[in-house]
């Protein structure tokens, strides 16, 4: 209690210092008056009495000082004065102050911005309750357990029934063809529909804000709908009475059973307009045990780890493997949902975090260097003040306060830098890094960076201060400008700091070099396509106005009309753009040829539905046979085109054209073999099967993406496209127009993002290392200016001296580079998954980094070397 009172009184005294002083004056004056009156009564004259009373009291000032001590505020008082002094001292040396504050600002700002990005994307959980319990379930071929396949309805139902580890589990149908038409007549519009099973709302733990979700007995395609907040406001004007009302979709009357909260967004499908019950009817057909099309998310029971759930799943896999012996890709695995959403950004951001940490260390080292130089510069000043009677604690305290002042200024500028850096990061990566748009400046991360930078400023500011305070002032003053033993050891310390800087910068340089080359290799990958000069956009047809026959005709019509636009050489539609990942992976088997009825004759292949002149439009060559044409319509026998890889796998050693295959439950004749297309931008080649839209339009509304090959540039094409489409159907929208190269590159945008940031960091690191080297050498030259002057006066060759300084700089660089090289080798394992077509230990990159580092070091060392010898010896010696 009394401790608290004490603290409170001290703090009060700081705040009311003036009043306390005034009151003390008055109190002491009163005391003196009373004393004088008493003395007067005892017979002294008034002035004598006054004098006597003062003597009796002891010096007034002394009393006041003692009283201040008693108030316990003297330290605070002095610290306030030291702050003022620190600001003045720093202002006297604006060069030093600017460099130090900017270095700190870069460190604090840059680090915080990137930490915040990593935090928002990686460390912050999904915006759901207990996100750690959320998992995504994939199926995979037991031979390729890393593969991630969608889940079959048959397996889903079994998982749901038999897994005790799940609190709730749900299947979603996330394919983009699941659109719905709403509105009437000319006003028909296509909206995004997400079919889900009843457990969906329990998995995400977001119940509808109005009404209810779905029941298990409604998982049969019942006409029920849960609205998004947006559609609820648009169609029902936010009326709570919307529940139970009707929403006409695809011409069928759906009953509104619920409305989701505005802030809810599906973790996998993204923005959704309505949720409908998924039809689990196909689960009753064992044939569908090979039909992978569901996305499955689960919430684990509280306290159940993903490892434990996986163990249970593994046991179930064995049982199900026996039950559906024919099923391929039937091994199931669980991934944390967060990992699934963030995906491989994980590693990119992890690497960035490492790069940022290195830059932060570099900043601290630079600050250390700056303060050490300053410390040795001020050794004399401190010695003088100490000789004049300044207390050592006082000198140390003053240095401390100066460091804190610097750190505070750096922190303030750092926050500004952080703001700018964050906008830059968002602008750079918003498209490629999921959830980056949620980026905000995290206060605790800012605090972390500020604390680290402040600690380094204080630590390295205090070291020389303590040394200076300990040193005998006489020694320091006598030594004057000659280098003393203490500055010699400081010099060595500083050289080691520069070595560490060079090493860190080197590692970042190697990282940036590897990524630059990877990106180049990636661009050179042969995707089996001609990606340049291809415009793409999505075209969704409302079912209400377009039945399957109309769709089959219309997509061909669109392609024909679009290809008539001047500057367009081919136009087509496709269910999914090439080289953009897995889509409609269906079981495919040879129905004739050497592998008929064998295990090898069955496999999973990418299925694409095409309209128009697809292969010409994206530049896939015909290898054998023919392509689809007007002969292949709904009335003709089913025909398919396969990729060369598919032909080789299904019909080894024989001519594929004329053989028969079965895919998607349809048996067809192979009429042509086309060139291979990569699965994604990395260039992995997988088998493809192509279906003619004219023959397959009845299966579903394929929502074909249009592709247009321009003979020249695609610029200006969009206006013609809109005009052409408006002439065909004014209600249609050109949705998501983009260059094919950009669409494919999108999956690599993450790598570009990482690359840009890492290159920036490498640049900053290099600049900091160069600055450090420059600082150390300049300082060394200044210390030895006298020595150089004498040498030159005695006839030493200027070039020799210059070489000496240069050699010193390059030695430090060489040691740092060797250490950096070892570091890069040690870290190469981390980079392996980020590099492409190149070893993480690529000798060319290593050599290049060495050369670049040396070049920068040579420049940083040349300036001081030049300065060492450019002055006239006489002017130095005087």
């Amino acid at each position, binding site marked *: *209690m*009394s401790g608290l*009172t*004490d603290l409170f*009184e*001290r703090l009060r005294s700081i705040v009311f210092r003036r009043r306390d002083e005034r*009151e*003390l004056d*008055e*109190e*002491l004056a*009163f*005391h003196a*008056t*009373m*004393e004088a009156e008493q003395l007067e009564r005892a017979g002294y004259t008034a002035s004598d009495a006054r004098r006597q009373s003062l003597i*009796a*009291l*002891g010096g007034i000032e*002394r*009393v006041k000082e*003692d*009283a201040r*001590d*008693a*108030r*316990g505020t003297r330290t605070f008082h002095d610290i306030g004065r030291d702050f003022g002094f620190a600001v003045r001292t720093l202002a006297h040396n604006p060069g030093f102050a600017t460099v130090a504050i900017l270095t700190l600002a870069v460190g604090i700002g840059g680090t915080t911005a990137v930490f915040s990005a990593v935090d928002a994307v990686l460390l912050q959980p999904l915006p759901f309750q207990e996100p750690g319990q959320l998992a995504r379930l994939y199926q995979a071929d037991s031979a390729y357990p890393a593969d991630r396949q969608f889940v079959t309805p048959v397996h889903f139902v079994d998982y749901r029934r038999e897994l005790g580890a799940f609190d709730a589990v749900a299947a979603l149908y996330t394919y983009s063809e699941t659109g719905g038409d709403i509105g009437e007549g000319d006003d028909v519009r296509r909206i995004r529909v997400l079919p889900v099973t009843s457990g969906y709302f329990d998995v995400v733990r977001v119940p509808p804000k109005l009404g209810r979700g779905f029941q298990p007995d409604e998982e049969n395609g019942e006409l029920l709908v849960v609205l998004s907040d947006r559609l609820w406001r648009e169609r029902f004007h936010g009326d709570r009475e919307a529940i139970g009302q009707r929403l006409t979709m695809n011409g069928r009357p759906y009953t509104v059973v619920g409305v989701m909260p505005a802030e809810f967004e599906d973790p996998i499908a993204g923005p959704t307009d309505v949720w409908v019950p998924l039809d689990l009817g196909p689960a009753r057909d064992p044939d569908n045990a090979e039909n992978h099309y569901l996305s499955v998310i689960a919430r684990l029971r509280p306290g159940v780890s993903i490892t434990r759930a996986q163990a249970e799943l593994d046991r179930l896999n064995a049982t199900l493997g026996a039950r559906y012996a024919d099923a391929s890709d039937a091994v199931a695995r669980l991934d944390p949902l967060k990992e699934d959403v963030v995906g491989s950004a994980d590693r990119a951001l992890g690497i960035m975090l490492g790069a940022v940490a290195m830059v932060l260390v570099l900043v601290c080292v630079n600050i250390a260097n700056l303060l050490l130089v300053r410390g040795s510069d001020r050794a004399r000043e401190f010695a003088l003040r100490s000789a004049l009677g300044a207390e050592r604690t006082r000198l140390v305290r003053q240095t401390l306060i100066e460091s804190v002042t610097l750190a505070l200024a750096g922190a303030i500028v750092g926050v500004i830098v952080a703001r700018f850096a964050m906008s830059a990061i968002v602008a750079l990566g918003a498209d490629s890094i999921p959830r980056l748009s949620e980026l905000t400046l995290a206060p605790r991360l800012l605090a972390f960076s500020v604390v680290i930078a402040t600690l380094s400023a204080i630590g390295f500011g205090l070291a020389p201060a303590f040394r200076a305070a300990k040193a005998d002032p006489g020694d320091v003053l006598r030594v004057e400008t000659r280098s003393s033993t203490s500055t010699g050891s400081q010099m060595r310390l500083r050289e080691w700091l520069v070595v560490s800087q060079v090493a860190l910068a080197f590692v970042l340089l190697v990282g940036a070099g590897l990524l630059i080359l990877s990106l180049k290799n990636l661009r050179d990958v042969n995707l089996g396509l001609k990606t340049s000069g291809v415009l793409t956009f999505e075209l969704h047809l409302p079912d209400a106005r377009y039945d399957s026959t109309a769709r089959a005709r219309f997509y061909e019509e669109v392609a024909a009309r679009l290809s008539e636009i001047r500057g367009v050489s081919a136009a087509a539609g496709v269910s999914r753009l090439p080289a953009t990942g897995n889509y409609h992976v269906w079981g495919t088997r040879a129905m004739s040829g050497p592998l008929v009825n064998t295990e090898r004759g069955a496999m999973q292949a990418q299925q694409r539905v095409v309209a128009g002149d697809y292969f010409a439009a994206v530049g896939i060559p015909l290898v054998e046979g023919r392509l689809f044409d007007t002969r292949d319509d709904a009335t003709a026998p089913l025909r398919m085109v396969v990729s060369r890889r598919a032909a080789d796998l299904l019909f080894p050693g024989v001519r594929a054209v004329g053989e028969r295959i079965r895919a998607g439950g349809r048996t067809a004749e192979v009429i042509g073999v086309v060139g291979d297309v990569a699965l994604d931008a990395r260039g992995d080649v997988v088998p493809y099967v192509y279906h003619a839209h004219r023959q397959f339009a009845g299966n579903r509304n394929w929502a074909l993406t249009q592709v247009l090959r321009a003979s020249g540039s695609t610029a200006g094409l969009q206006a013609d496209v809109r005009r052409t489409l408006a002439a065909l159907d004014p209600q249609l929208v050109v949705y998501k127009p983009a260059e094919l190269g950009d669409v494919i590159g999108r999956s690599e945008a993450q790598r570009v993002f990482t690359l840009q940031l890492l290159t920036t960091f490498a640049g900053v690191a290099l600049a900091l290392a160069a600055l450090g080297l420059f600082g150390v050498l300049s300082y060394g030259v200044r210390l030895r200016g006298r020595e150089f002057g004498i040498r030159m006066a005695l006839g030493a060759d200027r070039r020799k001296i210059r070489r000496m300084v240069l050699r010193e700089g390059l030695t430090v660089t060489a040691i740092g580079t060797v250490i950096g090289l070892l570091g890069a080798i040690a870290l190469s394992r981390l980079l392996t998954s980020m590099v492409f077509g190149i070893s993480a230990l690529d000798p060319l990159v290593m050599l290049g980094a060495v050369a670049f580092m040396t070049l920068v070091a040579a420049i940083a060392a040349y300036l001081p070397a030049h300065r060492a010898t450019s002055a006239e010896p006489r002017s130095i010696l005087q």
Partner: protein
Amino acid sequence: MAGEPGELLQGTLEMMVLKTLSLEPMHGWGIAQRIQQMSKDVFLVSQGSLYPALIRMKRRGWLTTSWRVTENGRRARYYELTPAGRKQLGVEQTSWQRMSDAVNWVMGARLATDGGRR
């Protein structure tokens, strides 16, 4: 405990201030005078030790202060014991009693004769 007027140990001064203020609230000069009187002019309390002591004691929460007008019309800062201060006085009195008893036992015989002379 010299017979001459002199400086006091800090703790002793504080104890005497507490004792003085236990009688009535008083200003600094009054406290000094009262101690001088009560000690029969043995202790002359200097301003230099009194005021720091008062501030310290206030910091510990033993005293509160208020500005009042003295009987002859001057403004002065009056010090008053808080309950904590009163308790502290009890503590100090007990420990002082124990200590002076102990010193008396040690110095027993001579003290008796000294006492006799006075």
